[in-house]
């Protein structure tokens, strides 16, 4: 049984919605009634059937519309996709990873046939049927990274590993929580994380880097991160801040349920075999407050998390302007009952 892809928008009229099944599978990021930074990294192994972790690379009902939104962003701003000259090999690594994972997990939608270097790729949801030579950039309409990530949900950072550090030397970034590839390109792990509050003092990044440098082939890892977004907008970039920043002033007690979205990133970390680089896919999932409170446990817990969040973290995540309104709205969905441990809805 294939996925039924929704036709929806992430801009203008914001027609994005989650189906009831997709609400149930939302990767809710809080395992307890509070939140603090931690090195919350775990092996990226298969999760329960139907969950976003069932397959190594998740494809969902928003796939086709997200790819249309990415094409719009790239048409307006080509610098969202950049690859320094030494990163082409890593791009081929990524192309192989995404094509093989998709074809294996979703054979009704994707098909890959390999005869040595001659590859044949069929992407049915997007109507693509291409033959090319693996390793020969002249046989694809874009570079290998751009070609395959125009067909893959989520942002992708390709990192070069050298001198005991990781370097943001390539990527495609159109669904980001307020950071810019054009600004970060060429930076190392500590440089691009410099703006994050509190975590440096806790030694989080030193430990996280040590872990990531040792991620091995065939043993990917993952973590969840989160923020909130007003309106289901994928492209909340610094480049377009003038378009979405003012949205934060539009939250009222009446429209919280529709406008305020929990935004969860499923970040995974993969060693790339030919280049010895790493890829971080950063996959964004959105859920409106109206959709989220259909799970009473999530409603109670999110209320407690947002209410008790340290001010620095609330400010870094851009919540300050509408936090009080949101807490008041969520409080009405929190009867004070205890919540069960773990992420899932009850």
């Amino acid at each position, binding site marked *: 049984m294939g996925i039924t892809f929704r036709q929806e928008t992430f801009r203008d009229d914001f027609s994005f919605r989650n189906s009831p099944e997709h609400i149930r599978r939302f990767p809710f990021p809080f395992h307890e009634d509070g939140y603090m930074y931690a090195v919350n990294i775990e092996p990226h192994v298969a999760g329960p059937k139907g969950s976003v972790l069932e397959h190594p690379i998740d494809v969902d009902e928003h796939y086709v519309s997200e790819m249309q939104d990415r094409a719009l962003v790239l048409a307006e701003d080509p610098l969202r996709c950049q690859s320094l000259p030494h990163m082409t090999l890593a791009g081929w690594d990524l192309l192989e990873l995404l094509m093989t994972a998709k074809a294996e997990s979703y054979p009704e939608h994707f098909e890959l046939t390999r005869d040595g270097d001659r590859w044949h790729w069929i992407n049915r949801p997007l109507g693509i049927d291409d033959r090319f030579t693996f390793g020969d950039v002249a046989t694809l309409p874009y570079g290998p990274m751009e070609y395959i990530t125009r067909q893959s949900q989520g942002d992708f950072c390709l990192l070069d590993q*050298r001198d005991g550090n990781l370097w943001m030397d390539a990527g495609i970034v159109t669904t980001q929580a307020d950071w810019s590839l054009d600004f970060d390109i060429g930076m190392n792990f500590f440089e691009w994380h410099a703006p994050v509050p509190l975590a440096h003092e806790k030694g989080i990044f030193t430990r996280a880097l040590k872990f990531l440098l040792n991620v091995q082939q065939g043993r990917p890892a993952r973590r969840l991160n989160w923020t909130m977004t007003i309106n289901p907008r994928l492209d909340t970039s610094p480049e377009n801040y003038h378009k979405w920043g003012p949205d934060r002033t539009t939250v009222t007690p009446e429209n919280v349920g529709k406008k305020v979205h929990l935004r969860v990133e499923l970040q995974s970390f993969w060693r790339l075999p030919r280049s010895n680089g790493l890829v971080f896919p950063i996959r964004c999932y959105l859920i409106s407050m109206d959709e989220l409170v259909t799970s009473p446990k999530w409603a109670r817990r999110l209320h407690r998390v947002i209410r008790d969040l340290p001010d620095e973290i609330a400010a870094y995540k851009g919540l300050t302007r509408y936090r009080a309104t949101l807490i008041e709205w969520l409080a009405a969905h929190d009867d004070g009952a205890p919540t069960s441990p773990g992420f899932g809805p009850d």
Partner: protein
Amino acid sequence: MSTGTTKLDVVVADVVTVNAMVKRFHFRRRDGGLLPTFSGGAHVVVEMQDGATPRLNPYSLMSSPLDTREYTISVRRDDAGRGGSLFLHQRVEPGQAMVISYPVNLFSLDLRAKKHLMLAGGIGITPFLAQTAQLAAEGGQFELHYSVRTAALASYGGELQARYGRRVSLYHDDRGEQIPLDRLLSAQPLGTHLYVCGPSGMIDWVRGRAAALGWPAEAVHYEHFSAPQPGLPFTVTLAASGKTIHVGEQQSLLEAMEQAGVDPPYLCRGGVCGQCETDVVSCEGTFLHNDHWLSEDEHRSGRKIMPCVSRFEGPSLVLDR
């Protein structure tokens, strides 16, 4: 979470005598499929059951990364070593089932380099066989200088010269030839990266001259696996697991822990990757640090040890394992 690698079930497809000291081993997947793609400079850890003694030794992959039907390694027989190379030379035959780790690369090419200058000593040639194959396929610029004892012991010297012509130079100890290091290091285009793999003395020599001639440390890469050295036996208490273990003369501390059912993470087993770094709870005695991971300050502090290669002499050592 612990890191580490996934294991691969392989069969020995062939064993080839290269010369009086070196044998080459070919591994294929037992299920007949392709092995994982790897990058030049990667190694695998080969698991051996030598009687009652398990041995896990790292060896560089020397086959072309472009062909993953099989992996090959070349092993130099070390008659004074602890026995891993002797086991491979004397006991491993075609058809035998073995277990190896997924490839891990701790000696990666810097893909930004305008040119790769490679210096090999003896069996240190193996990672360069894979790296030159990778670079040649991509049109990368490289130059390989290979120091050997005698022409008869120049493993793959002839093949490399046949493949890459003047890009490969050989230097024979018995003819008094030496790599003209200062001349090479003084006459490279900007953006050249330097790679060295060979005996410790050679690595120190190359790194020392490169630093003296103003090479940036980021452009100097070296592969420095130390095999664990035998030593006096000692006794260790593992506080976290509540065990007291005995480390034999021919055994490493890491191997003794594994034998007792305590499994610290590892990747290289040669004092380089840092995975098995272990905190010292208390000690009375002297550490024999043999790793390239901890800083000199950490060595002096007596608070950390790398159990894959380092040892201890004294009445009492308690570790946080």
